């Protein structure tokens, strides 16, 4: 009998549309690989549907809140349905950029200097009186300002001087209750995708992102032609090795499995700095993970098959 896979997509997050696009491609790939596919837009009926359909595994093609923060993972654990991608703890750690950065710092993995400020710190504790301390804390302007927890660079801005800081923080705080101000590292932007886990992790070639406009923000991410991509990245073998090693270290430090994507920047000397990790990377036609796979001579279907096989093997081993 063919195994039944529920592909979870859509949902309530701000990245609903991206997720639907990822999900449709994943469905096609799974069907082509011979699975019986159940495409599910995540709504209030989800649990009921999963209970009646009893899929062998769930493929998580959700992005953003509820899909990447551990919510859906915790629910699937409770329902006893094996699922793709990192587990509850790894998701919760990756979703919160500040927690990720603290953890990486503890493990000696380089990440740009940063400050995290929450809406409550501003409302209840007068944090706005300390904005003048931020440049010194992160090593001066320019800085990147972004929501503490959100995907697809929603609410992300570059700030070049003190006058733009408050506006950028307020904008970031529209997307989450916390905002991160991070030192801006001038250099080469890379996305490094990792498949598998632990010692068997397979690091795919780095994809280099060159925004055509000022920065690789949400609009640029969603508009073909707004950024140029190179895969593998146009960097020295030494730099490629360093990026690959650091991405693998992040994947394992956060306890990720099956798939994750680490975004980092190489400074002028070729030193990698980790910006964030994504536990459910985009799988659309313009997403970074599929580009990386192609550069490694893997098809989209290869990636999807590999990821679902890992989830199904966990089901068998009862892990």
């Amino acid at each position, binding site marked *: 009998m063919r195994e039944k896979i529920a592909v979870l997509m859509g949902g309530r997050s*701000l990245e609903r549309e991206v997720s639907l696009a990822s999900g449709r491609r994943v469905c096609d790939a799974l069907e082509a690989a011979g699975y019986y596919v159940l495409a599910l837009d995540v709504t209030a009926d989800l649990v009921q549907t999963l209970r009646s359909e009893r899929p062998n595994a769930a493929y998580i093609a959700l992005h953003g809140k509820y899909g990447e923060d551990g919510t859906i993972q915790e629910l699937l654990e409770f329902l006893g349905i094996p699922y793709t991608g990192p587990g509850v703890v790894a998701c919760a750690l990756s979703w919160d950029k500040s927690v990720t950065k603290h953890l990486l710092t503890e493990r000696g993995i380089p990440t740009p200097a940063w400050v995290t400020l929450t809406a409550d710190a501003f409302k209840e504790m007068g944090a706005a009186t300390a904005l003048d301390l931020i440049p010194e804390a992160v090593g001066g302007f320019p800085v990147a300002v972004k929501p503490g927890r959100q995907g697809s660079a929603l609410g992300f801005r570059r700030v070049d001087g003190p*006058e733009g800081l408050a*506006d950028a923080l307020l904008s970031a705080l*529209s997307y989450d209750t916390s905002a991160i101000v991070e030192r801006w590292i001038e250099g080469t932007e890379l996305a490094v995708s990792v498949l598998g886990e632990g010692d068997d992790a397979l690091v795919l070639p780095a994809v280099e992102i060159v925004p055509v406009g000022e920065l690789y923000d949400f609009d640029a991410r969603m508009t073909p032609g707004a950024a140029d991509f190179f895969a593998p990245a146009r960097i020295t073998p030494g730099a490629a090795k360093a990026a690959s090693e650091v991405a693998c270290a992040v994947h394992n430090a956060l306890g990720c499995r099956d798939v994750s994507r680490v975004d980092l920047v190489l400074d002028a000397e070729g030193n990698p700095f980790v910006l964030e990790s994504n536990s459910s990377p985009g799988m659309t036609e313009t997403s970074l993970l599929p580009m990386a796979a192609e550069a490694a001579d893997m098809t989209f279907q290869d990636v999807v098959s590999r990821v679902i096989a890992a989830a199904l093997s966990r089901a068998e081993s009862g892990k």
Partner: protein
Amino acid sequence: MGTARIVFDRWADRYADCISGVRSSAVRDLFAAASRPDMISLSGGMPAVGLVPADAVAQAAHDAVLHEGVAALQYGGSDGRPQIRQLVTELMAEIGVRLRPEDLLITAGAQQGLDLLAKTFINPGDVIIAEGPTYVGALQAFSAYQPDIRCVPMDEHGMRMDLLEDELVKLGPRGAKFIYTIPNFQNPAGVTMSPERRRRLLELAREYDIPVVEDDPYGRLRFDGGHMKPLRSLDDEVIYLGTFSKIFAPGLRLGWVTAPKPILAKVLLVKQAADLCGSNFAQCTAERYFQGTRWRRTLQALTRTYAERRDAMCAALEEHFPPEARWTKPDGGFFIWVELPAYVDCVSMLAEAVERGVTYAPGDGFYPDGVTGKNCMRLAFCYAQPEAIEEAIRRLAEVIEDRLELYRAFMAAGALPSRQEGAA
């Protein structure tokens, strides 16, 4: 293994300058997130077509095919069928505009009329005058031809004629290609131009020899007060755009344009190039739908429904919105315009609103510079049920209150630039 530059759109460098700058926007994707079933949308100006009796439309379409036969299925004249143009003259006579069928042509909604006029009049760099804020669809239609759009602010009586005059003095006679206005229940502001201002607008237009384009989709959707004469009834050089979208249904894509004869001849040429002719089938169906008096009762029911929804929104705004917010009180149409303190950014606030299950249209989209109006929002009361409107406004008020609290914390610390604090 060689490095490959990844190309999504290999034609990217071939597109015309006027469209290559158009990008997907975060706002559009936030609206996409709003397709969720639990979301209450106050963003779109969709007519309540559910109130249009399906049997009447079915009958009209049935009769169109049965009685008009091949005519309904064949190409037609570029100016539209004589029968529907006759119908439009009757509709226009009811609002005080006397026309002959040859004085107008049928378009695919008033939106096509906007595009045809833009194509007819605008060279890159030409000045167009419009209200600020103005209809986003007009901005889109005009922008494709790369004009310099100047916005004239409004108050509760519509476009400010003193400010229009200032602009005209700067531009001089024939200094703009046309003045675009939505005098009735303006989209997005909801305000109506007073009779005095209408007369003054026409005087200034004559004095500076600049045509006026009157866009009047909502004129017949009046809830309070008496009918106001369209500009076209006061001056037969006014170019007037009408539509069946609000008095019947937008799905038929039927509108009309009337203009001085030479202009109409040019617009007709442009229309031929655009689509040869409109849909005869849609025109035949509309002709039949408007026979008899049932459509009038439907229009009354639609207007009553919109009035109830306007009342629900105004009451909810009074009850829930903070004292820092100001909003317009429309006597008709679809929209209320809300202005928040200058430091509030309604564009990023939309993310929070979507999280809370409500959408609105951020104000910056209604200005050509895409910056002005950031502290404003357009709320559409036309589509949601009164109870949903009340709930949506309650949710939105919480989002705004949360934002204001944050802004106050920044202001108390002197952390917001003073220009923004001053503008509050």
